[in-house]
């Protein structure tokens, strides 16, 4: 942990967003993670995302479970609401919170242990319900907080810092998402904010659960020779499948949309995602061809990144369950608690 708290410098020439806030207003407490942790870089990307989108801090809810990754919501947007839940239960808390108040922007930060081991069931159900939230998996392939055992996302053949190479097949959260019917699937790398920030912005705009698997090197336990989740391995094996631009709804859309190498999808809030440099034959809205494409590259030992799959037509939890547009905290008491007569009628339906 640094010897000092990041100081506030009165006249630092920092840019301001539409709310008149600087990036410093979107920061949180000092990180206690190891120096050089990929998670800190993702924290910075999230900070930038909300600052650039001018999201009011008090309209953000940040949720997490247990693990190095799950400590990170403390490190961004100190003015946001937060819930640090039990191990693997972030998705359940997020589901409940979203049901109670759909006006907030929900961002859950989890890790490969929290989401692919203990919490995989909850993740699957959150995908199935299409909870409107940003779900970030900070994926480093090891249990860093317990000193570096290989996790469920470790690739076959990858070597821990000490001990034998992994022999068990990994769980790929993108493949899991494709199988579970996820509507927004992206993979990125903590060392590439130019790619990660537009994806995060698109995720915030997505009407449903936006799952982002971010390869995030563990500098202490998984950044060595033989690791498949190190900075060097990622820089040598990353294949940027598509480049993504995010154009918020309020900005005039003057980029050329269309053309042979671009595809654009209009989000439910009016913002536009433009895919650039799309490989020939790649269709980010076709579940089957996306799966095939990822598998082909996996066989070559390559990590495909980018906004890989998007389905903006599927209803989110709120449409499926007809949740009120306003948060429950804004409903009048009579609507929230309609009285015993209404309850009697309801109960009668089940008798």
């Amino acid at each position, binding site marked *: *942990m640094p010897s000092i708290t990041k*100081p*506030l410098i009165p006249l630092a*020439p*920092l840019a301001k967003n539409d709310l008149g806030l600087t990036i410093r207003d979107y920061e949180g407490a000092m990180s206690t993670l190891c120096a050089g*942790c990929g998670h800190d870089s993702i*924290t910075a990307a999230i900070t930038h995302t909300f600052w650039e989108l001018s999201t009011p801090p008090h309209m953000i809810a940040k949720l997490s479970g247990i693990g190095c990754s799950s400590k990170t919501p403390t490190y961004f947007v100190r003015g946001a609401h937060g819930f640090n839940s039990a191990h693997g239960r972030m998705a359940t808390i997020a589901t409940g919170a979203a049901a109670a108040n759909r006006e907030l922007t929900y961002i859950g930060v989890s890790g490969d242990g929290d989401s692919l081991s203990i919490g995989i069931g909850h993740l699957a159900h959150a995908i199935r319900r299409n909870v409107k939230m940003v779900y970030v998996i900070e994926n480093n392939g090891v249990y860093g907080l317990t000193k570096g055992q290989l996790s469920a996302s470790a690739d076959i053949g990858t070597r821990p810092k000490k001990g034998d190479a992994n022999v068990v097949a990994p769980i790929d959260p993108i493949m899991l998402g494709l199988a579970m019917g996820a509507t927004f699937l992206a993979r990125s790398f903590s060392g590439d904010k130019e790619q990660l920030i537009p994806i995060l912005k698109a995720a915030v705009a997505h009407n449903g659960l936006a799952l982002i698997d971010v390869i995030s090197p563990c*500098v202490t336990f998984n950044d060595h020779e033989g690791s498949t989740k190190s900075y*060097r391995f990622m*820089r040598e094996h990353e294949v940027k499948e598509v480049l993504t631009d995010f154009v918020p709804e309020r900005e005039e859309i003057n980029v050329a949309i269309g053309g042979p190498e671009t595809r654009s999808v209009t989000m439910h809030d009016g913002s536009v995602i433009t895919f650039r440099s799309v490989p020939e034959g790649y269709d980010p809205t076709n579940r089957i061809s996306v799966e095939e494409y990822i598998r082909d590259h996996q066989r070559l030992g390559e990590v495909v990144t980018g906004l890989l799959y998007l389905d903006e037509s599927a209803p989110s939890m709120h449409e499926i369950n007809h949740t009120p547009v306003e948060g429950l905290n804004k409903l009048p008491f009579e609507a929230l608690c309609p009285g015993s007569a209404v309850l009697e009628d309801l109960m009668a339906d089940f008798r």
Partner: protein
Amino acid sequence: MEPTDVTDPNYYHRVVDCQWACPAHTDVPGYIRLISQGEFDDAYLLNRDSNVFPGVLGRTCDRPCEPACRRGRVDGTPVAICRLKRVTADLKGDITDRLAPIPEQKNGKRVALIGAGPSSLTVANDLAPLGYEITVFEKFDQPGGLMRSNIPNFRLPAEVLDEETGVILDRGGVEVRYNSPVTSLRGLLDEGFDAVYVGVGAPRGKELDLPGRHDEVESHIHIGIDWLESVAFGHVETIGKRVLIIGVGNTAMDCCRTSRRVGGEDIKVMARRPREFFKASPWELEDAEEEGVEIVVNHAPKRFVIEDGRLVGMEFDVLEWDEGARHSSTLDTVVVPCDDVILAIGQENAFPWIERDLGIEFGEWDMPVVDEVTFQCSRPGVFFGGDAAWGPKNIIWAVAHGHEAAISIDNYCSGTPLTDRPAKGLNLISAKMGMNEWRYHNDYNPSPRQQMTHVDLTERFSSLNLEVELGFSAAQTAREAQRCLNCDIQTGFSASACIECDACVDICPVQCLTITRNGDEADLRTRLSAPSTNLDQTLFVSGPLPQTGRVMVKDENVCVHCGLCAERCPTAAWDMEEFTLLTPKAGTSVLHIPVASSANEGRN
């Protein structure tokens, strides 16, 4: 951009804004850190090494360092560098046994210094320890030059000046001939000195030849620096009640405040132009106004009003200026009654004692032609420095000139070409003491600039010699010293160790770091993390980073040297390194001093 060459002493030197702005390159952050550690002797000596008169300059310096200070760009007010310098002089013990010894065995070379002002004394300070026999010719009976005659005692107590001139003049090797104005350079040259240094200042106050100037019977119109000199040496003890000062430089401020102490009650400083065009330092204006001096702008002197041979007032045109104060129009004409007028409109050089057939070439404005590097005039072996070389500047410039002239004199006397001067060098030593532990206090201290306490106005005028500024208290010193950003603790970067994890970029409190593809400077400045708002500040650019070939760029503008980049770096690619500028002095080896540090291995 090409990778920045940090082995060039000028790169890191420029990052230390105060040291870069100081003509004598005083190691400001270095001595401020020593103050924080309570090492006042060391802090004083570090100062003295470059500026020779810390006690004097800690009270009177023109402070070119302070407008340059990075703290000004960070919270709006610079560190009170000058007053911290005074702290080192106030709190030091006896340091004489730590000064360079004066050898018994002389080197056989005799050097004459004309004038015992700051530049001559600096030459003596540098040459006496090398075995030179120095003879100083001084027209007054005390040393110090303008520090003695023109700076009033209430700003600079005589004891402080006595002590700092004494350690140069009284330790041997230097003979001072007081009351010995040089009236003929030819005569002096005939005495067979190996070299002569002219450090006589700019001793002539400018005249204001307006109607009435020479119509007085008794003289109540004074030339500022002559009048200050008369007060300093006790020849003048009173002045009339109503005094007008013509001019708005620092001499004018000394004149008005001195008048206030010798009988002046209604004192007006008359200025032709608006306040923002004044030459006086803002703090000297404030001090004068605090003492009840009125500053009147937009009044152009027209004539002295003399009645029956007696000065009774002065007539002024009241002006209105356009924007930028380039053109004026006259609104009115007024007579301001007064008993005395002091003219403080500038100083001039005067060399009536230099014969024009000695091979010393005189150029524009009848000034000697002096080489800007060697300080030698067209006659070999005769050197000029301080105000005598290029007209009035200030004490710190005089000191800087003295150091350079001493190098030239040493070269000249040893038969070395004058242009064969020792090069600047640098030293870089890691400031790392352990995991996230540094040899300096790296936290940012948000304290505001400490205000100097002054003697109460009721007491202040009881004596002409009562020093007005009381100096900083212990608490003020501690707080002010912590405001220094330690700009000399440099952010050293080893590109080869960088894994591009972005930790430094993300942690920087002022977003001064960027990892991006290389480009030319104008292009890079458009792609930095924080807007590039200060083009005077340099960009550091690394060599290509190993994994992606991008470069690390640092905008030096508002880096607060907090060390967080180095603390968050997993591979120690960043390190905080203490930079020492090795400034050559007379006697320094001519050899280029290499970068004496392992910290620089594998850099870029």
